[in-house]
């Protein structure tokens, strides 16, 4: 079994594992945010746009200041602004959430491309030397698993946020309010919960995380901005939220599974297995769809999911 030997040869395995974790980071961050928004009864298909705007703004800020943390803050700020804008459309104006979400996504794709063109013309600036990883002493030298502990600081933050998000959503008053607003906004309102404010807060929180996820792509994983560089990661995050049945503690499994399948697409190609390449390339998406069919079949959506709320 030569290909198993190659797959589990240390350099190759380390890269596959490290690549899996890096690839899943922006998806985890975006999925945590979307988990809160959907638990509050709003579907944000503009998540991809939030990530893309975060990627663009963080890149510009990092390029100007040569400081990665200012870049990350700018990415989060951009996500927040877009979150408030989306909230205005669907909470105040009560525009159809699906239409508004897709509109926001298409708008951001065009906007970022236009701004990149206006700002840089035919040049292609790169943010130099700010994308270093943060190895954890000792653990980052353990054979085979060292790449787990040699990630960017944002990746560690994304892991830490998973249990925190679960705790906030299921063990705090705010989390209870979010779930109540998502299940029955009329009843929640009657009990003194401000539905509008709660939904806005979830969108702002999502903006922070989706913007951070986008920023991770452009200034942590890479060092530049490319037109539509999110490449559907926002939509994958939405699918993973449904896979996890709105439970943040399970988001990691979905994102990790997608990351593993994604890593396998290039791992299997290098191993040269005689499997049709088309099948290898669709592996991550097939896995997510299959799991959605199996696990999310009997999922109970939040009662007021995707429904606008108007106080009487």
């Amino acid at each position, binding site marked *: 079994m030569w290909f198993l030997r190659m797959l589990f040869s240390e350099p190759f395995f380390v890269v596959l594992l490290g690549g899996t974790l890096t690839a899943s980071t922006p998806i985890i961050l975006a999925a945590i945010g979307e988990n809160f928004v959907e638990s509050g009864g709003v579907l944000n298909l503009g998540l991809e746009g939030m990530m893309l705007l975060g990627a663009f703004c963080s890149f510009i800020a990092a390029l100007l200041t040569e400081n990665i943390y200012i870049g990350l803050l700018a990415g989060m700020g951009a996500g927040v602004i877009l979150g408030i804008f989306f909230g205005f459309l669907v909470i105040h104006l009560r525009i159809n959430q699906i239409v508004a979400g897709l509109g926001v996504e298409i708008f951001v794709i065009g906007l970022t491309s236009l701004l990149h*063109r206006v700002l*840089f013309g035919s040049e292609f600036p790169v943010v130099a030397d700010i994308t270093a990883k943060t190895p954890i002493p000792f653990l980052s030298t353990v054979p085979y698993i060292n790449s787990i502990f040699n990630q960017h600081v944002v990746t560690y933050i994304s892991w830490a946020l998973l249990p925190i998000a679960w705790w906030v959503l299921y063990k705090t008053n705010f989390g209870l309010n979010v779930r109540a607003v998502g299940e029955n906004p009329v009843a929640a309102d009657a009990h003194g919960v401000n539905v509008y404010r709660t939904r806005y807060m979830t969108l702002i929180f999502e903006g922070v995380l989706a913007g951070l996820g986008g920023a991770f792509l452009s200034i942590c994983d*890479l060092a530049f901005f490319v037109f539509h560089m999110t490449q559907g990661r926002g939509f994958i995050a939405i699918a993973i939220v449904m896979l996890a049945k709105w439970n943040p503690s399970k988001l990691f499994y979905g994102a990790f599974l997608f990351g593993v399948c994604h890593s396998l697409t*290039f791992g299997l190609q*290098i191993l040269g297995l005689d499997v049709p390449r088309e099948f290898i390339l669709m592996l991550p998406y097939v896995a997510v769809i299959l799991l959605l069919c199996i696990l999310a079949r009997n999922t109970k959506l939040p009662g007021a999911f995707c429904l606008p709320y108007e106080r009487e």
Partner: protein
Amino acid sequence: MKKMLIVTAVALLAFGMLFQTAIAVPPHPGARPLKVAVVVPASATDQGWNQMGADGVRVLQDKWHLTVEVAENQGYGDIKPVLRDLARKGFDLIIAHASGYQTMAPEVSAERDVRVSIVENPDAIKRGLVSNYEGEAQKGAYLAGVLAAKMTRRNVVGVVTSAEVPDWNRMTVGFMEGVHSVNPKIKLLYNVIGEAAYEDAAGGKRNTEAQIAAGADVIFGMGDGASFGIMKACEENKARDGGKVWFIDVIGDKSGIDSKKILLGSVLWRFDVIYEMMLIDIYAGRFGGDYRQTLENGGIELALYNEIPQDAMNALKQAREGIVSGRINVSNMPGTKEMRDYKKRLFR
């Protein structure tokens, strides 16, 4: 009187012939500036396919007094509304610069009676209305393969591509033949980032890192926006022997962002060469042909960056001469299946 009549007749005849010649000879381009539009699927600043396509027209703008419009980021879906809009604006030539536009553009051409140029669909050529253009990039890629084979230290080279489209397949085959011609024992790794992952820079980086981990120390990347990720992986990672991972690019020139000096070369595609042929043919009234970028006409060339050892330079020179003289025949394989089968045969 008779003499005067004869002189007048001869003078009129001469003037008539002169006038006829003046009609036959194309007028100076400045007399009737052409309006040329180029439609590209992604950003015209990608230092790759899209930018080179747009820049190809811009380069000719002053020389031919052109009115130029670049419609960028048009995606890979239905671009007929864009083409119709350009036709309505009175453009004399619309260059539909993507293989994905090769059937829609001729349809709009027939519908609106406007000249279009398409990529890789010679069957759609129509006299006066539809021209086709393709690059013989496999020959440039052959040279890139020779260079890679000369520069690899561990005898493992990689190809990372964003899709398996005809141009990328041709270049993959050319690259493989170039590598094989120098050393048939070299191991070749081949990765496709996605079905149409032209802008997936992160995916390009992941695939390249895996190839480097598997031993590759020279990467041939074809990816448009994704190629920035491929280059980034080459910059950030060391080869298994601790040395540099070399990168060979296609279509554009990324030497300006090569801060780590890992860029060996690029198979440059100069579209201005064939666009100019199209403009000449428009004036000459023979638009509607099949245009090729070749090593011979300068449409394809291997640009070299950083320090290339003399041994490799000599090998490149010999290979180039061999191709131009016809002594070396580089296969032209646009099909994905035939490319894959050929790869299996060549690198067992």
